[in-house]
């Protein structure tokens, strides 16, 4: 499970770095974007492996729902190298896109789970950003992409997963930064009113920002 948490943290960190690299002078560096996507992929693979192992150990049937959330975000991840790579010859829109997307991106923080701090010197403090997901302006085109059945997410399973998890009060298992289907399900089913809408919006905003990144490229 520690590996799981570490993998999730690294994925979040990488997304933040990928996002902030768009603001760098001189544009996105292809090599760096590639390296970030490689790390994200490693983290995703390890996350999935660990998840499968824990599932195989005989957990509740509701568990797979979380996998699908990860799948949704990380299906976007392989597109990441394409994103920055394809961007260079066609980056005319990024100038304007960047402005609108900045307000959306909740950059994940570096959780204190890191085992060894490097140094006490103040100059060495890595750039830490707030983890608070902002209440998002959900972008319609991206969310349509989210909601489409072809996106590879098993939506009905998630609904039951929510019910299951809520009943069991096991909110720790839910990754906050990953996009959650709750908002969509609530709209569709007209069911549970936003009990988790805060975190759900935050998660969705990250997903939508990620998808917009890809769409923009």
């Amino acid at each position, binding site marked *: 499970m520690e590996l799981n948490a570490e993998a999730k943290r690294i994925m979040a960190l990488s997304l933040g770095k990928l996002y902030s690299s768009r603001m760098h002078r001189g544009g996105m560096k*292809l*090599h760096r974007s*590639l390296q970030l996507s490689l790390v994200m992929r490693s983290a995703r693979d390890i996350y999935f492996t660990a998840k499968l192992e824990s599932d195989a150990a005989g957990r509740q049937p509701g568990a797979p729902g979380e996998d699908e959330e990860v799948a949704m975000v990380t299906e976007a991840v392989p597109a990441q190298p*394409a994103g920055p*790579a394809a961007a260079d010859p066609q*980056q005319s829109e990024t100038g304007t896109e960047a402005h609108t997307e900045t307000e959306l991106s909740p950059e994940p923080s570096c959780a204190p789970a*890191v085992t060894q701090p*490097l*140094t006490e010197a103040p100059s060495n403090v890595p*750039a830490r950003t707030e983890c608070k997901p902002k209440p998002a302006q959900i972008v319609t085109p991206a969310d349509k992409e989210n909601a489409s059945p072809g996106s590879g997410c098993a939506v009905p399973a998630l609904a039951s997963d929510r019910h299951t998890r809520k009943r069991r009060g096991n909110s720790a298992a839910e990754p906050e930064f990953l996009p959650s289907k709750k908002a969509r399900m609530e709209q569709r089913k007209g069911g549970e009113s936003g009990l988790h809408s805060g975190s759900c919006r935050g998660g969705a905003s990250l997903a939508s920002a990620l998808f917009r990144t890809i769409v923009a490229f």
Partner: protein
Amino acid sequence: MLLVEDGLGICVVHLSLSLSLSLSLSLSGAGGGGNDVQWCFSQVKGAIDDDVAEADIISTVEFNHSGELLATGDKGGRVVIFQQEPENKSQPQCRGEYNVYSTFQSHEPEFDYLKSLEIEEKINKIRWLPQKNAAQFLLSTNDKTIKLWKISERDKRPEGYNLKEEDGRYRDPTTVTTLRVPVFRPMDLMVEASPRRVFANAHTYHINSISVNSDYETYLSADDLRVNLWHLEITDRSFNIVDIKPANMEELTEVITATEFHPNQCNTFVYSSSKGTIRLCDMRESALCDKHSKLFEEPEDPSNRSFFSEIISSISDVKFSHNGRYMMTRDYLSVKIWDLNMESRPVETYQVHEYLRSKLCSLYENDCIFDKFECCWNGNDSVVMTGSYNNFFRMFDRGQKKDVTLEASRESSKPRAVLKPRKVSAGGKRKKDEISVDSLDFNKKILHTAWHPQENIIAVATTNNLYIFQDKLN
């Protein structure tokens, strides 16, 4: 009797107990190094204050072919050239100091309107051309444009024009009663830098290397996905000789990280990749060298797998040895020496800062894992050098199998002060004078180093200072 051939010629050496001594004598002047050498502080260039202006950050350092000139490029697009003073006849043991010879703005920030992107003026690389006449030439490049600069001296000027006064004002022709021939008179030395060629618009991605060919007519430039071949005289076209861009960018798995021409085979060059492989290409085989002649790759050690093992295997620099038999690569944690005749694995591997392997996650968080360290050979290819963190730099003596860690700091900057070897304690008990890994300053990194082609003089760039060290002469 033993016949030894090296880059300097063939020497006959008597096989005896003093074999190593004979070898070093026969290679005299080529610059040995390593642990027998004591390194002393010589000079430091740059501002003293700790508040570093971003434009002053040194981004490249390069000696010219004679070692008389030392060029640095910075993030602000400026090139500063230092010249070594001629040796003082009264003090023959003391090598000349390096003083500023010329400073000029090589590149300016530009804006790509089509892509709405700023093009940084940071100088990524400087490469000197061999000297053919009184003037010096160098190539400097930023992310998109390469420029050929001519640096020439002017120490005379014509005086005694008929139609002009000395200050340049035109004389009234009616006042001219006699004719005289203008003569050259000495003036204060003026060093002029002028851009002679601008090689632009050939790279979609960011240029990471340039390399002058041994034919002294062509050079190559490389970005993340392509390598282009230029003729020094022709600016409006270049030949693409390597293109690794996939048809579908989503299938991109590796990028080009460094390229270099072979030092004496004008048809051969190598390029390194982000996957830790090096490809050697022969331009005689085909116009497009996508198919390599040799592929140098070491299988990954499975015990070292982590989230980050893929990215730390990325090669940040590749340099041929002066004799052209070996090449050296630098990845995040190590330096590897490859024999060009053996593709399966390097012949030597040196760990630069293995104690960082357990810190990769933190180094990823603070972006240090993306630092691109360079490496260099000494004049006779017996010692290699590379930088590290905390303003440490490392030298590996290939022959003696010894290594040393030194520090470029203001504290050890007394004239001719001998540098004390440093040691980092990996863990457990920290001995006296050792530094623990956790107290290393990761903002103080030495990415760029250069070694004089003949002497034991090295230039080491910290963030915004250039340190010059030389070996202690007795």
